[in-house]
């Protein structure tokens, strides 16, 4: 199953390899039934990173991160929590 992942800003180090699309996102093959939480673990993003996830223009809440199973062609944007500016 293929999903698209866009890691923003300082989260980009978790791509492992360079992003492979022009908009900075990467397509990854993952096992069917993978949850959002399992994808975060697969990417190697540690728990102490502060970030939130947008999917189809909506933020995924904490509970949904644990349980929501990804579907083919889902597009996730992982955004670091920044402060100030």
């Amino acid at each position, binding site marked *: 199953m293929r999903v698209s992942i866009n890691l*923003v*800003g*300082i989260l980009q180090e978790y791509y492992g390899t360079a992003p492979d699309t022009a908009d*900075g996102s990467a397509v990854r093959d993952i096992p069917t039934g993978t949850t959002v939480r399992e994808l975060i673990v697969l990417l190697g993003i540690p728990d102490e990173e*502060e970030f*939130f996830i*947008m999917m189809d*223009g*909506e*933020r995924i*809440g*904490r509970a949904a991160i644990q349980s929501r199973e990804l579907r083919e062609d889902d597009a996730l*944007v992982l*955004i*670091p*929590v*920044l*402060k*100030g*500016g």
Partner: protein
Amino acid sequence: MGWHGKLLRVNLTAGTCTPEDLNMEWAQAYLGQRGLGSKYLSTEVDPKVDPMSPENKLIIATGPLTGTAAPTGGRWSAITKGALTGAIACSNSGGQFGGELKMAGWDLLILEGRASKPVYLYIENDKATLQPADDLWGQSIWDLEPAIKNAHSDPLIRIASIGPAGENGCRYACIVNDLHRAAGRSGVGAVMGSKQLKAIAVRGTKGVGVRDPKAFNVALKKFFDILAKSPAREGLSRNGTLAMMDVTGPYGALPTRNNREVQFEGHEKLNVKAMQTPNENGHTNLIAGSACFACTIGCGRLSHIDPAHFSVKDQPRYQKASGGLEYETAYALGAAVGVDDLDAATYAGFICNDYGMDPISLGGSIAAAMELYDIGAMTDKDTGGLKLEFGSAQALCQVAELVGKGEGIGADIGMGSKLLCEKYGHPDLSMAVKGQEFAAYDGRGMQGMGLAYATSNRGACHLRASPYASDFETLEVDVKPAVVKDSQDWIAAIDSTGLCLFARYNGAELDHYAAQVDAACDGGWDVERLQLMGERIWNMERQFNNAAGMTKADDTLPKRILEEPAPSGAAKGLVCKLDEMLPRYYDARGWSPEGVPTSETLKRLGL
């Protein structure tokens, strides 16, 4: 120690400069910079005065750690009754000026009265004099700074000054130092201009002492190490504050076209990648990052505009490097006005640096004017034929110049969005609180920021509270009053130290600030004392505003944010639930339901 124990009182009416002992009892209660400056202002100025009258005072304040080796220890503040807001104003800047002033031996400058002719204040350590500035009046900041340095044959002089905007009564004129850093908000430069004070030029060689140098070195080394190892700091050093554009854009809290929308389709033309990538001519906007005095973060940007760009094609002056886009500037001179032209936004930012204007309020006021034009309330006759359309980079650049010069429609837009929208019959279109334009966050997508804007003592502001982590976590409002109240207090404390708030956002905790303050200053300083002091400062500011005539009715947001649901993004369909948050916030503050600090609260805080 930390403090010199000295202030300079400058009476511009009489033309005198008089040293005085610093009130050390107040220094123990308010530390320095924002807290101590606000204490002097509250004590010496009637809150009801006209901000532009000689009775208003302008206080330039350093903190006890300003000018020391503490990382980020270059901060200084301008405190006054704000020309834009009529509220207490405290505008914070970095650069090199603050450290220089402190090293000249001064904790505070109190500037009072009004000069009969333009003057500038020249300080060389203990020696302070008022110098004629007839020849300098009218000069832009980029011309003025070298002129003063040349006049004194000293390139190491540091200067804080106003540009033409501050002379022309632009209500959001700022005080610029070191060419492109600024005490930007609330119209502190307009107050300086009303006093006919063009500049403050300082040379200081005395250094700053601390109470316990060994303990101070240990504490600052720890601060240094925390910043050095922080991934967030590394990101900020590399990308600047503009990285926020890729957060609020996709999330849906990026105020766009005068807050009609919360996402800007052009945000990727204004982000870090755009700034760092060569354009079709091979020109890259960003030159390098830059840092203020003693700063190990370096969030500032130095940029230059493509010489082929329409804005600078015939203006070599603006083809040089200056302060580049930060997130707030990119929002205000980009998304807020619907312009996705990176170089045009950079040019308008350069004009702000050169003419001395707050880019946030400039962008917010132009955005309001564009909406007035869009609905037909402002016509070509009003604009002198200028097509003031959302998305027009040409209009943005032309209007920025007109506001700086106070000419044509620029004079109206220079009044700020509140007076502008009142004049053109649509007061609801001003996206401001207490007369000050929004920063780069929409209060529907970020509910805590909505509360922070509504309750900020200096009008809408993103630097008076820190609801960021909570706001990107949840839209539920139950937690917001406590988050906003607590962060308002610790930010007031940090703003009084001489250090930068951004260290707190990049790994440092309040106890790391406290350890340095304690090592530098007498009196015993810890986190609890700093937090309580912050609360004292917040309440003192509130008392000033209440005495100036402000009430609960001023703790509000524009109708659009309270009644028009966000059209997209994470908060799609939501308005800001201020009515739910405000009573709980007052309660958390120990204020009456009308927003007045109770006698118990005042007593607890020693007010």
